[in-house]
């Protein structure tokens, strides 16, 4: 694969793109605010002493609605793309996505239990109620991934092919359980479940944001440190072992980071497809397969892509809103087909 863009140019370009996405995400929305008001409100939020004349509405919309939403988009997009790189590196297959180890289907199962069976957990404290869905989705993702990882292990070795097949089997099993909950659901919970499966950055609030920001920052700082090991793994498992890489430890870290990152992202924003698959590809097309570039560049590209997709989601049908999963899949699916056809040629 040829390198189209030098790493330095790529990082400058992606940083500018990401900055543009952040700015647009703060400046555009169904409520049309004068650009200058948005700027003043943003500066005031950043702590600069600017007179608050007539800025109340702008400050409220930028500070309470658009800023948490932008932060959520950054974190979710970045961590999904990063997990995509981790999975494609682990399975040494460019068609792998974070769903392969069962984290998405596990989260969906957790969410279905929370949405449909939520009222059955009657004894829960009132203050926990709003977080039940997120917690169940996170634990579901983590649980199924742990099971897939366990099934792939034999005699202290993790067999990637077995893990892949175990992932497919457990995804099917979780899918059938979700189907059962769908059957048991009434009209209202059914629609909640459907919308959850399409993802949304709508209604982001700081209280729900912090856990995700912490997890994604942790994953985004940790995974790029393993870039060299991932490069070695591209050669094959035994080759990487001969190069002095602790392959078993690496696999464990990759699976753990993916489960944690995707679990937290899905818990905060619902299912958002195709970012984890498409973004690493895009970056690889531009800058080649070196993980030292691929990992950090995917974070920037994933975050930018999700913010742009969210702009479409919030503006296309305003004052109503599209689920963001529709937008990302709409961009992602044709791109995936394009990749398949290119491989065949």
């Amino acid at each position, binding site marked *: 694969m040829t390198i189209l863009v030098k790493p330095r140019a790529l990082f400058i370009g992606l940083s500018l793109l990401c900055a543009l996405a952040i700015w647009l995400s703060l400046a555009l*929305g*169904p*409520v*049309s605010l004068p650009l200058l008001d948005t700027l003043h409100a943003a500066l005031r939020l950043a702590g600069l002493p600017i007179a608050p004349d007539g800025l109340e*509405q702008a400050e*409220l*919309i930028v500070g*309470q*609605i*658009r800023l948490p939403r932008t932060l959520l988009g950054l974190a979710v997009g970045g961590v999904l793309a990063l997990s995509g790189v981790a999975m494609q590196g682990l399975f040494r297959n460019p068609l792998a996505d974070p769903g392969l180890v069962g984290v998405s289907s596990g989260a969906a199962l957790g969410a279905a239990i929370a949405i449909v069976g939520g009222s059955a957990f009657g004894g829960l404290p009132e203050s926990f109620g*709003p977080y039940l869905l997120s917690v169940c989705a996170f634990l579901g993702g983590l649980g199924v991934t742990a099971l897939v990882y366990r099934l792939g292990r034999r005699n202290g070795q993790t067999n990637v092919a077995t893990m892949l097949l175990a992932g497919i089997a457990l995804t099917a099993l979780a899918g059938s359980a979700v189907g059962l909950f769908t*059957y048991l*659901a*009434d*009209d*209202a919970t059914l*629609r*909640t479940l459907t*919308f959850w499966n399409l993802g*949304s950055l*709508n*209604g*982001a*609030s700081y209280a*729900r944001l912090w856990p995700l920001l912490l997890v994604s920052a942790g994953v985004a700082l940790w995974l790029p440190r393993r870039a060299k090991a991932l490069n070695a793994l591209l050669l094959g498992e035994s080759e990487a072992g001969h190069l002095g890489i602790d392959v078993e430890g690496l696999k464990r870290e990759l699976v753990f980071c993916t489960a944690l990152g995707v679990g937290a992202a899905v818990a905060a924003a619902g299912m958002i497809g195709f970012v984890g698959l498409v973004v690493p590809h895009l970056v690889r097309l531009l800058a080649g397969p070196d993980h030292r570039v691929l990992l950090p560049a995917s974070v920037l590209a994933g975050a930018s892509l999700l913010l742009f997709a969210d702009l479409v989601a*919030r503006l296309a*049908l*305003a*004052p*109503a*809103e599209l*689920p963001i999963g529709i937008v990302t899949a709409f961009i992602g699916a044709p791109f995936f087909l394009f990749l398949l056809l290119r491989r065949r040629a």
Partner: protein
Amino acid sequence: MRLSTRVAALCVGLLVSHYAAAAELPQRWVSAGGALSEWVSALGGESKLVGVDTTSQHPESLKALPSIGYQRQLSAEGILSLRPQILIGTEEMGPPPVLSQIRNAGVQVELFSAQPDLPTLQGNLQHLGKLLGAEEQAVQAYRRYQEQLEQQKIRVTKAQLTQPSPGVLLLLGHAGGKPLIAGKDTAADWLLRQAGGHNLATHTGFKPFSVESLISLDPEVLVFADRALTGEAARAALFKENPMLSSTHAAKDGRVIELDPTLLVGGLGPRLPDSLKKLSDGFFPGSAGK
């Protein structure tokens, strides 16, 4: 000169006080609930509506208003862009973080119960009337509604003296295909019972049935609600997609009644009494029109 100044001052004063009284009531409304939007229109507040959700399908003219999407998936900024003073909806409205964002932006958010019973409706109408400045109309609307339901009850009781309650199934479908059967704990079941029918389905919620169990229950009356088609087209589609239905008693006797599916969500709406009458006329053909 002095007199005219006084008159002018008086006029201005009156105008201001009148304006102030009107200004206290919200003038720009967003409604996220089908039955609520209907009541707002029925109480003369349709011109105040600036946005409705996707369940608000009646009266027809509401469809021209900006749509704020599905009532459980509202967008804070989308609604704020309509510059509403008040957002009304049922307890289904959400998600909760969006509602609190809208409240923080200074919009009055009023929740109503979608419970299908008369005391709830009375409370809702009183509340709506106060907010619309149409308290008198609200009281009258409730009184009329109560009378209509009272008459309905008498009609059904009388009919049941001479004819047994028919066994009924309610099929909710989309262009005839794969209908779901209404079971217990649904608004549909409540409607069937109010109209004097006996719901043959004993499960809870809406569930698909196999053709065989449909036939074996052999309903005397079929009620169908189609989300895509209306009238003869919906009836034709139902029998085309489910040919086995033709062997039921209901089909042979031609007792297949259409119901507007929007009646099945959001609590008691203003169109309900008429629909109930239509249903019970179909259930008890001997006493129709009395």
